[in-house]
């Protein structure tokens, strides 16, 4: 049997969804971004992609599948989580398509569908909702192995959200907020 890429496997298994692409275009428009439909597959994005060598991300392939309507397949694959967010693809795309932002939107859909969020995000979110920042202050060691915190370094206290309950409540509601544009 001849070799077929995994993405072709996906194409064989599933049917494209045109409602997904319309919803995606609507959300991108709210952000002032163009539709992946105008991507002409030049691969310039992939040639500079910071996640290509190590993590095999190919933004032009992601755009091809997106254009073809295989959005659910892209969301279900792990590939969107390998993007470093370096914005080279957006900067260099001759069509002003933005693979990085398309992937941000699709990751948002993944999260909204209630699937488990990868990496440290859960923890960071918890910190942010409770204290306003994605992590708490850490103790660091100097060259003589003395431990320091903000106080011992003479740094002033950082004062986060005053009304933490209200802040947490507004953020919790974000789970159901969508970009809109439908």
């Amino acid at each position, binding site marked *: 049997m001849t070799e077929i890429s995994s993405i072709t496997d996906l194409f064989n298994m599933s049917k494209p969804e045109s409602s997904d692409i319309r919803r995606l275009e609507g959300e991108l428009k709210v952000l002032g971004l163009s539709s992946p439909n105008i991507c002409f597959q030049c691969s310039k994005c992939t040639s500079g992609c910071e*996640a290509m060598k190590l993590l095999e991300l190919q933004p032009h392939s992601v755009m091809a599948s997106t254009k073809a309507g295989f959005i659910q397949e892209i969301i279900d694959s792990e590939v969107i989580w390998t993007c470093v967010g370096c*914005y080279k693809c957006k900067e260099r795309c001759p069509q002003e398509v933005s693979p990085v932002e398309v992937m941000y939107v699709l990751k948002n859909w993944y999260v909204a569908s209630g699937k488990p969020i*990868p990496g*440290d995000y859960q923890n*960071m979110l918890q910190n*942010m909702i409770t204290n306003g920042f994605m992590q708490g202050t850490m103790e660091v060691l100097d060259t003589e192995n003395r431990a*320091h915190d903000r106080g011992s370094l003479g*740094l002033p206290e950082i*004062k986060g959200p005053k009304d933490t309950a209200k802040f947490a409540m507004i953020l919790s509601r974000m789970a159901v907020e969508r970009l809109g544009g439908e």
Partner: protein
Amino acid sequence: MTKKIGLYPGCVIPTEQYGYEMSIRKIMPELGVELVDVENISCCGAPFKSINLVMQTYLSARNMAIFEMEDLDIFAPCPQCHLSLTETKQRLESSGELREKIVSRLLEEEGLEYKGALKIYHTLDLLHDLVGIDVLKGKVNKPLGWNIACHYGCHTIRYTGADRPDSAEHPMKMESIITTLGGTTSDYSEKLNCCGGPLMTTHKDSALTKAGEKLKAVQERGFDALAIVCPLGGRVLDSKQERAAGMVGEKLDLPVFYLTQLVGLSMGMEPESLGLNLNKSPVSKLI
């Protein structure tokens, strides 16, 4: 002339990259910039773009509203924060839908008012354009004398549409600051390469491998040190340099400095007052 500006440190700088914050607080008043601390601030939302873009936009808008209500422009030394604030400002200008959702509904609940009239500075344009090369030059009394590679970091320069502090493909402001401080520098082909920092959230090994590759390239080109302006860069290139070295199987001993630490050193300030005893890379080779 003194310029008053609100310091927005974000999450990473005030919780672990203390050397960046200490050097900022130390040098800016000497350069005619009065930093004002503001209460009630929070994360800018940038680390959560993958989770929810509405939340990111809301958080950035919320912080800007807080500074605006104090009549302050904003200084965000973290390029990720700077990008998030800038793009949020643009989104709210262009999208009535987001403006209605975020500004009118969510911010109002906290009694916050967002106008979108404030200026947003990063370390690079603050030093290069607001303070200016001439003022900087006048403050140098201990010229650095080292050959220093510049690392801008992704979000300092990309993407152009979001009004970055320097050019996306040919940034030169850091070089011009380094030479003003009495250092030398030159271009190198890996200059625009990412440090891997943002990948620490989901792919730690890859993040550290990328950092190791970047450091290795700079070291092999014979630079004495690397200058940075991003706390995510500091986290992997300086704080975790040893682990990055392990990932690429190299001996790395490249001193990594925040640009603001270099400014302070060139002004003759005490290394400890600039947090240099907290850098994990071997800066003591030079100072």
